[in-house]
């Protein structure tokens, strides 16, 4: 007899707006408190204290325009946020400060979340959608120098980039970029040559979100239709579809694979969070708590496996925190 799905461990309320992005920062040692960053539609970034379940700080840096991406850069003292005011802001949060140290004006009016990759100590690469419709620009942070601009060839008709993922095959080697586009295809870009290495049509509808497992060279993408597509990268650096999984209801806003690569979570437009096993995409659980579209899911980076959490942010202004499959 299968058990009924678990209830959320706790629910964070108080954003008073739809939650578009979440990011955990729980890796610090005592007396560091584990925190969760959330970006909402009203322009605020809330820093949630996971011990007290209350907001420690609220950051207002995007002129009340929706924040749709947050990520820490090496510890919770440095935060990057991206908002609909066409800006990417870098924050300094050490010692109780809440100031924007730097910002990048991307001139992009889309919704594509940028992607961060640490390449060396104190150096990051950031890929973000650029001003021109189909282009992706890659910048180095914190120097803000442009590394390359990835332009699809003329006539490719890929549409806007919808989601990005920077990754390195092994430490130290050339970083690559996976980009999902509006026409449903995923493209692998080589940053040094600024050329597309492989293009794969995974969906009939725009690719809403993707995630990639660099160890297994396997990735997964979700779109606005009912299909999840799993594809892999072979030695010739060609993408090919491994399998597809049909969902009950259409629409995925976000997919994320847990850092230990055992499970993955999808955020659905049907208000449900689905958990799958990553090895064979075996459906494991359907978490039904939210009453509106779930916009984002994120796994925590706790050092202790049993403390690991999954967070989901939804249009119903709530963030649900789940503790699921923590034994493995």
């Amino acid at each position, binding site marked *: 007899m299968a058990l009924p*799905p678990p209830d959320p461990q706790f629910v964070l309320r108080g954003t008073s707006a739809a939650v578009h992005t979440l990011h955990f920062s729980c890796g610090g040692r005592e007396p560091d408190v584990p925190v969760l960053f959330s970006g909402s539609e009203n322009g605020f970034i809330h820093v949630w204290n996971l011990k007290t379940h209350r907001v420690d700080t609220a950051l207002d840096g995007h002129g009340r325009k929706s924040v749709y991406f947050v990520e820490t850069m090496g510890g919770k003292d440095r935060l990057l946020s991206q908002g609909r005011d066409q800006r990417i802001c870098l924050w300094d949060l050490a010692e109780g400060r809440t100031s924007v140290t730097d910002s990048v004006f991307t001139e992009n009016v889309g919704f594509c979340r940028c992607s961060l990759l640490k390449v060396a100590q104190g150096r990051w690469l950031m890929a973000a959608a650029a001003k021109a419709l189909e282009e992706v620009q890659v910048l180095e942070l914190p120097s803000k120098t442009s590394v390359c601009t990835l332009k699809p060839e003329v006539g490719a008709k890929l549409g806007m980039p919808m989601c990005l993922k920077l990754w390195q095959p092994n430490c130290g080697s050339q970083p690559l970029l996976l980009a999902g586009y509006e026409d449903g295809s995923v493209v692998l870009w080589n940053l040094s040559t600024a050329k597309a290495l492989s293009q794969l049509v995974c969906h009939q509808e725009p690719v809403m979100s993707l995630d990639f497992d660099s160890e297994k060279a396997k990735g997964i993408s979700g779109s606005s239709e009912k299909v999840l597509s799993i594809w892999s990268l072979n030695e010739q650096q060609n993408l090919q579809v491994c399998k597809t999984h049909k969902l009950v209801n259409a629409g995925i806003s976000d997919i994320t694979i847990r850092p230990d690569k055992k*499970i993955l979570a999808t955020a659905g437009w049907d*208000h449900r969070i689905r958990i799958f096993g990553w*090895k064979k995409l*075996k459906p*494991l*659980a*359907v978490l*039904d708590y939210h009453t509106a579209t779930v916009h984002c899911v994120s796994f925590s980076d706790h050092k202790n496996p049993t403390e690991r959490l999954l967070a989901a942010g939804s249009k119903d202004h709530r963030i649900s925190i789940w503790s699921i499959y923590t034994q493995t």
Partner: protein
Amino acid sequence: VSFIPGGLDCSICFVSHVLGKGCVHGRQKEILSVLIPRLTDLTKSDCIWQRICWRLVECVPDRWMEAVVLGFVQRAPGADVLSRLLGNLVVKNKKAQFVVTQKLLLLQYGHTTAVLQNLLGYLSLDGLRRALLIKVLQELLETWSSSSAVKHSPPEQQQYISKAILICLSHLKEPEIESCRQELLTSMMEGVKCHLDSSLPQIRHLGMIVAESISLKINADGPVLKFQYEEDDETKALKSLLVQTPPLCVVPSLPDDDRNEKADAALPSVLESTEKACTAAPVMPDEESDAELDSDDDLIPYDMSEDKELKTKAPVYIRDCIEVLMGSEDVDKWEATIKALESLVRKNPAATREVSVELAKVLLHLEEKTCVEGFVELRQRAQVAVLTTDPIPVAKYLTSQFYSLNYSLCQRTDILDILVLAAQELSCPKSHGKAKHSGAQKPCTQSLPGSDSSKDWRRIVDERIKSKTRRFATGKSHAELASGPNEFSSVAGHFFFPLIQHFDRPLTTFDLLGEDHFVLGRLVHTLAILMYLAVNTVVVTAMGKALLEFVWALRFHTDSYVRQGLLSCISSVLISVPAERLLEDMTEELLETQSWLGDVVEKDPDGDCRRLALQNLLLMENLKKKLQTVPS
């Protein structure tokens, strides 16, 4: 009775005479219970004994033949045994033929299925007798398909005849079916029409099953007649008659009976256990192979059975609902509306009252657009909700529509059902109104809820006082029933009188007193329930008087379902109207009714009618006694 062992040429006439006389004087059981088993044994393999047996029964004088044959048919353990014992008696002896083919089948109906099997099997076992079998089948079918027989004979007799027909059919062979195919078809068509016309569900089922079986026999390859009815034990038993099981090869003789039975019992249990062992074994290897595949993936899935497709939302306002139901092309929305309608109506009584008649009209004409589960119940609950929210105008509308042109029988009976359900809800206090509504409405024979609750309440109080606590029981919901106004009181008349008004006025498509006697039966039952629910209301006396007059006008109706309804009407009147009012205002009607009830008890062919009439007479007696004991 002892037998002289064979070898001698003896005259058995004397023995036949003794046998016959003994049987006719009622000693059938004693004589034949010894005789038949011995004869069965002796005739098993010995031809001479068979001939002796035949001679024995042939020599029985005609005036005692019936008793003897009946005894043999009832006691023989199987058709083949009967065949051995009686031989071709039916062909040789006119009286025996009459008994077997006419009396036992058409004139009597109390015999068991085993007797029928014996008899008809016996007829089928010999070539000479098969002609009789076909004749018997034709006569049975004639009776089965005659409409007056269906209307006037008791249901038990009709069941008996149907069983006999089914057994005959099971014995018929192909060439015989060929020869009488046309007749079978004609009788089937006529018979099925009369049976389906009946108001009693039992008769309808019988008709359907027999017609299906006949059609199966005459049309084994082609399309077969198939009716839709609920399978219950009775229908399954009837259908099993169509298949003939081969007679038992080993007929256990008397002393061996017990041993054989035990052996038989032992066999099935051994078979069962071996089956179980077999099924257990294959399960194991499957599980193991599954475990192997999953051994690297040790994540156990949770229960995902709740993961279903999202549904579209229903409108939130009543007027929107009306719009969607009337003309929307969006089937998802239509479905969602239909499902949400009842709760919306109940939550917004004020809004519903503004559009109640319109909504009732839309719902009455609503047809199933998509395949919604439980559509009929959803629609009915919505209609009941509308009716209880705004009783008077909606009741006026519904009762007027009941007598209007161009409605289907289904819609008219729907109207009656809704009126009853709503009356039930209105007459019980609020706490009961939210209880589940059951489907079919049959007049209930429970005693008044009012008196029950007061008795319970008293009993509970006494108990509590005894145990010296001051709290009243919270477990019994009956204690709450006593409060709450009876909302049915103000509207009972609006439900009741319009229904009674026009019953004798025929319209072109609707003739209560003529063809549509099924609806008349339903109407009468509905009036009985409404009367019953009107207890303790102000208008109950007027209703009672009108109902008794109505019953008087219809008391000789030929349909037994209608008569049952009329008798329940009388019960309701006797229960609901206070005794003093009954005696003062309705003495004449009561006396007339009493004499009619006496008639029904004695002469009505339907068992249920007789029973109900007897109950009514008892009720009247009780009333009289009650009034006599009360000091005036």
